[in-house]
């Protein structure tokens, strides 16, 4: 086998130009596939990152009615659903896959929020003591929440950087008073995400997808929530999972635990908002278009394979005398067959390796020039090389069989 490979390299090296041109079909096909796969993977990871937030691993669990969320969000806690108290929260933190749990109530699009005459667009969140930690917020200016803010229901608020710039237009917001539904709150600090991964916006669709997260947020102690919104509204649970892969698992654990302990009404149910699933949905959308590209690249591989077959047939004809002699001095048919199969496989494998290198280079160039997200997949590269080797074996088969079946008498007579 090793001897065959050496022989194959000698043969390829002996016809550098021809070998390269033959490989070119494979190189182009593999390069195209690697580029496309890298782009798909890059887009997928970008979607996942944008939705989930790198390293944050927070999944939300919220109450749903008949499977739909939102309907009951802004109403009083329905019959048969208990408030999640501190003891329950601590129990939830002990569940498998869960690192930390925080409770909050929210208005995603809060109305009647003003600073002076400026109206605020964004969300208001009534949060517990753990919220900032769980969601990876850190205080940039001013201070965070104090224990007394919660116990004494102090009307203080934290704003995020978006709010700070949109509502206060660059002025220092600390100490300023904002009105939420007529109740005055004093801004005591500005917070921002510690591991902020700003969503990458490539298109208008992306913009709408992520518009939510780039509008402002105002945080107030959850004990103040009933003052503003009057009801004990259903709480949303922010669950920080131990790892990104455990997010769905941790979210489902928390939801089912809550359904057991806090819900006694069949129409209501806590459900984990499955970001991973949503990411997968979006990913399959982007993959569908790229799969068509993969087919086209596959056709170029087919053409490359036919080129290999053609050149191998020429090579067999050229080396008729050599083959004839080898058969005459006792080479078995199988050995001749393998010699040519190996040569074809080495040729296309070389093409595959060069193609992977070109593809990786092209993908990186694309990400530089066009700004598309690119992620190189090592398994994809390995598969590409193995696949190009397989192309060599498949398309080398006909020439190799032809060589092995040569009649030595006629082959030796050929000039």
């Amino acid at each position: 086998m090793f001897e065959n490979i050496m022989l194959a390299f000698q043969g390829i090296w002996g016809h550098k130009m021809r070998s390269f041109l033959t490989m070119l079909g494979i190189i182009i096909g593999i390069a195209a596939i690697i580029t496309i796969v890298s782009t798909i993977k890059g887009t997928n990871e970008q979607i996942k990152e944008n939705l989930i937030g790198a390293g944050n691993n927070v999944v939300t669990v919220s109450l749903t009615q008949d499977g739909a969320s939102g309907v009951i969000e802004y109403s009083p806690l329905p019959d048969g659903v208990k408030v999640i108290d501190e003891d329950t929260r601590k129990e939830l933190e002990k569940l498998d896959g869960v690192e930390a749990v925080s409770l909050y109530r929210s208005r995603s699009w809060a109305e009647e929020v003003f600073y002076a005459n400026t109206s605020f667009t964004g969300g208001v969140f009534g949060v517990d003591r753990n919220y900032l930690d769980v969601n990876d917020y850190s205080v940039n200016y001013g201070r965070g929440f104090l224990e007394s803010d919660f116990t004494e229901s102090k009307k203080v608020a934290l704003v995020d950087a978006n709010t700070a710039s949109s509502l206060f237009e660059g002025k220092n917001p600390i100490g300023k008073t904002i009105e939420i539904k007529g109740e005055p709150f004093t801004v005591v600090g500005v917070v921002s995400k510690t591991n902020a991964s700003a969503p990458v916006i490539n298109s208008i669709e992306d913009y709408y997808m992520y518009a939510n997260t780039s509008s402002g947020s105002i945080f107030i102690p959850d004990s103040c929530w009933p003052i503003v919104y009057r009801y004990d509204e259903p709480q949303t649970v922010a669950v920080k999972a131990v790892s990104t892969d455990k997010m769905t698992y941790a979210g489902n654990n928390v939801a089912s635990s809550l359904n057991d302990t806090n819900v006694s009404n069949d129409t209501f149910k806590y459900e984990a908002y499955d970001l991973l699933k949503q990411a997968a949905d979006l990913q399959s959308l982007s993959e569908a278009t790229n799969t068509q590209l993969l087919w086209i690249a596959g056709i170029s591989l087919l053409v490359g394979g036919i080129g290999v077959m053609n050149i191998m047939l020429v090579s067999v004809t050229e080396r008729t005398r050599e083959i004839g002699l080898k058969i005459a001095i006792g080479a078995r048919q199988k050995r001749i067959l393998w010699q040519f199969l190996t040569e074809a496989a080495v040729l296309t494998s070389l093409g595959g390796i060069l193609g992977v290198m070109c593809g990786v280079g092209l993908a990186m160039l694309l990400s530089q020039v066009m700004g598309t997200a690119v992620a190189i997949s090592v398994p994809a590269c390995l598969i590409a090389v193995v696949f190009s080797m397989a192309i060599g074996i498949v398309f080398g088969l006909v020439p190799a069989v032809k060589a092995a079946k040569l009649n030595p008498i006629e082959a030796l007579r050929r000039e």
Partner: protein
Amino acid sequence: MILQMKDICKDYPMGKSVTSVLKNVNLQVNEGDYMAIMGPSGSGKTTLMNLIGCLDMPTSGSYFLGDRDITKCTANQLADVRNQEIGFVFQSFHLLPKLNALDNVALPLLYAGVKKEERRERARQALCTVGLEDRVSYRPDQLSGGQCQRVAIARAIVAHPKLLLADEPTGALDSVSGAQVMDLFSKLHEEGATVIMITHDINIAKHAKEIRYIRDGVLSEGDLNEQGS
């Protein structure tokens, strides 16, 4: 007895009719024989050589090489017979142009599954026997015709075959190197090799101890050389 052919016939279909190239050929070769088979072109001597060399199968008749019934061998068995029991020397050498002399000579041993070190050692010895120990790493295009043919002879003897089969071994050589090659065959014969040589040249055939003539597919019985002289 190394080789025994009985009533060997070889027919080739030519369109609707059949051409008989060999007609009831009987041939016996004993160990240590040095035989020349002579005949004009078209006499069937090449066909006979292909049959002796197990490159082709007779239409009818029996052929034993040693104890082996060649007519009942599979393709793989025939390959092994050619590899281990027959050494071929061709008119046009048939050396592989990209291999050096040593690798060309070692080639049959590769197919015999001999390990690399031993292959090289035995190939070196064979090149010694033909007097080319100083041309081991030369490629065929760096050797003269006579040297090429001696490399080819080294390749033929490297596997210690029962039978050396030479087809017009001097046909492509000038008279000086032709004579060298014929001396080499005589030397190998004296050392015990069994040689069959196919030629149309009486001066070459005379080197052999026994000459058989073939004409129109019929091989003469007995040794005409001795009868003639």
